[in-house]
């Protein structure tokens, strides 16, 4: 699987915040993404308060697939390399890795599986609908 998720350092994320966030929507993880106004929004930040709190995966999926949002969806908070594949599959396009994470270990997580059984936000068709 292609590693297309853009990794952003915490420093860059902070710097971008300081430069202005007019077109950025920060969505709390209990907010309903189906109701959010996306007018003029180019980036949506979703948050993982703990990496075991999986609500933002459903939010990302709904933003991409249900709302058809084509801008950046950024993972923030407790973002670890072992969840990057899931993030990309559910529709995130960038992620702010927690400072202690080792990027070296990330690539092989993407290399490991070529395809998956179920469809997701990026590859919509499940395996059984894909050409062999």
């Amino acid at each position, binding site marked *: 699987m292609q590693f297309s998720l853009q990794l952003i350092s915490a420093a860059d994320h902070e710097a971008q915040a300081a430069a202005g966030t007019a077109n950025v929507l920060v969505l709390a993880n209990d907010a309903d993404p189906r109701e959010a106004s996306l007018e003029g929004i180019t980036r949506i930040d979703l948050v993982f308060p703990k990496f075991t709190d999986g609500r933002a995966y459903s939010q990302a999926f709904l933003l991409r697939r249900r709302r058809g949002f084509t801008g950046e969806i950024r993972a923030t908070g407790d973002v670890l390399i*072992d969840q990057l594949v899931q993030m990309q599959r559910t529709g995130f396009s960038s992620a702010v890795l927690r400072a202690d994470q080792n990027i070296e270990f990330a690539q*092989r997580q993407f290399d490991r599986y070529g395809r998956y059984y*179920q469809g997701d936000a990026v590859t919509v068709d499940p395996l*059984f609908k894909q050409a062999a």
Partner: protein
Amino acid sequence: MYQYTEFDRQFVRARAAQHRDQLERNLAGTLSDDEFRPLRLQNGWYIQRYAPMLRIAVPYGEIASRQLRVLATIAREYDQPSDALFAEARAKQDALGPVPLKDGSFAHSRLTVGYGHFTTRQNVQFNWIPLPKSADVMDLLASVDMHGIQTSGNCIRNITTDELAGVAPDEIVDPRPYCEIIRQWSTLHPEFAFLPRKFKIAVSGAKEDRAATFWHDVGLHLVKNDAGEVGFRVLVGGGMGRTPVIATVIREFLPWNQVMNYIEAIVRVYNRWGRRDNLYKARIKILVKAEGQRYIDEVEAEYKAIVEIDGAPHTIPQAEFDRVAACFVDPQLPAATTTATALPADTDTAPAYQRWLQQNVAAHKNPGLRAVTLSFKRVGQAPGDATGEQLDIAADLVERFSAGEARVTHDQNLLLPWVRVEDLPALWEAARKAGLATANIGLLTDMIACPGGDFCALANARSLPIAEAITARYQDLDELHDIGEIDLHISGCINSCGHHHSGHIGILGVDKDGKEWYQVTLGGSDGSELSGDSQAGKVVGPSFSAAEVPDVIEAVLETYRRERQSAGDKYETFIQTLRRVGIEPFKAAANAARFAKEVA
């Protein structure tokens, strides 16, 4: 059985490699214990009281003889703690003391090594594999298409079904192809790996519910509508634990090919709305109870959006269903050599054989075949435990008598689904030699028990010495058959892995002031024909000491024998009597069995 494709094989191998990567990072200190924990759990690796525990997935209970042989190898070669660890564990368990029995003997904690354990969710567990060896075990499992994917963690767990799937005379639709398709869909689902809590699905395709579907997060009943079309009746929000809840029917008929689209809606709404602030309120049952119709409406709206906006990507094409269903054709058995069941020649053993036929042999959709249960319930071994040697013997029997296929049952036994009638005497002889032919299936000693305080880090009290005490007390087969069909379920804590809520008699371990006590419940049901509509048992008074429990069980059973009426040429069952006369006489008898000092 489902036949793995090259994709399926490669996927399981990749999963084993992923576990090895995580394990190595953990051992090297670059993946912390707290961050490794949810990852290893989703491969079945727990850390228990003394050692790691591995839960291996047996999807909907179907297991091949070649897989049983690998489990035997794991038992012998890997389920082996260091001498020091084992000695420490034994000393600590011995210090908890034995359960005294009426005849002056005792039931002890009986820690052993080198064995697998069949679970109520049709999986297999090992208790002593050192964690550093876990990656080797996963590679070994992958060599026979096995794994521990999603056998723990807050994700969609192993899908369970009727142990008689595909062979039951009362079957409406064979659930196995649907189970397999749902298994594949749920495997490494990116959106549903960190749900509020674990999520269990059970599927039933027969008239009788033998999969306790009303006790699951999602229960699916395969049905046919008036036009003869196949679909699902969908239940949601059942569960045990400290708040037992019977599932609610949310759809009377869902077309079969929509099942994944619909489950996606159920789980997505749960992921959004399920509570994450309190572990004990995080299961979907609490959400369904709290929101009621609002939850159901939201699921229907989400399902509609999946179909109309997302384009229903997981609608099952007929070709995919046919591909999977083709794996579940009946095996070609060699032609029969004889036509009649030959009785064992030895007249002394003939009654025992008859009893086994009556209790352990079930009818089959093919009149020339039977489904035979090997009993893993006997004195000296915990319910559902199988040593490496026994697993190998079971593999032999499965190969010789059941076309190489077996089922792990919800009741913690092993069922052979393809036994020819004329092979029954030979199977009986072979199973008897191996100690797997006790004619007790469905009877008192065929109890369900969790590993309890001898192994589990969560348990409040031990289950196994209680199981042992009751098993030892009821070794007289005449007495056991006279008591008749009954569900005895034992859990070592309120997590209810031993399903005490659904037992006709339930025993629940509780902790009071650091001591082991046991609450007894009566009248629970798993939803089978014998037990009636699913319901949780009612608690009998304050809890009992371990020593009192066998006497309490005896008093309850004596009450049944006193109160029961004849129903035709047989007595009514325990649960029928209890429903007819009510709980009070049983409660009174149980309370009267308390030791004098406790009442004073």
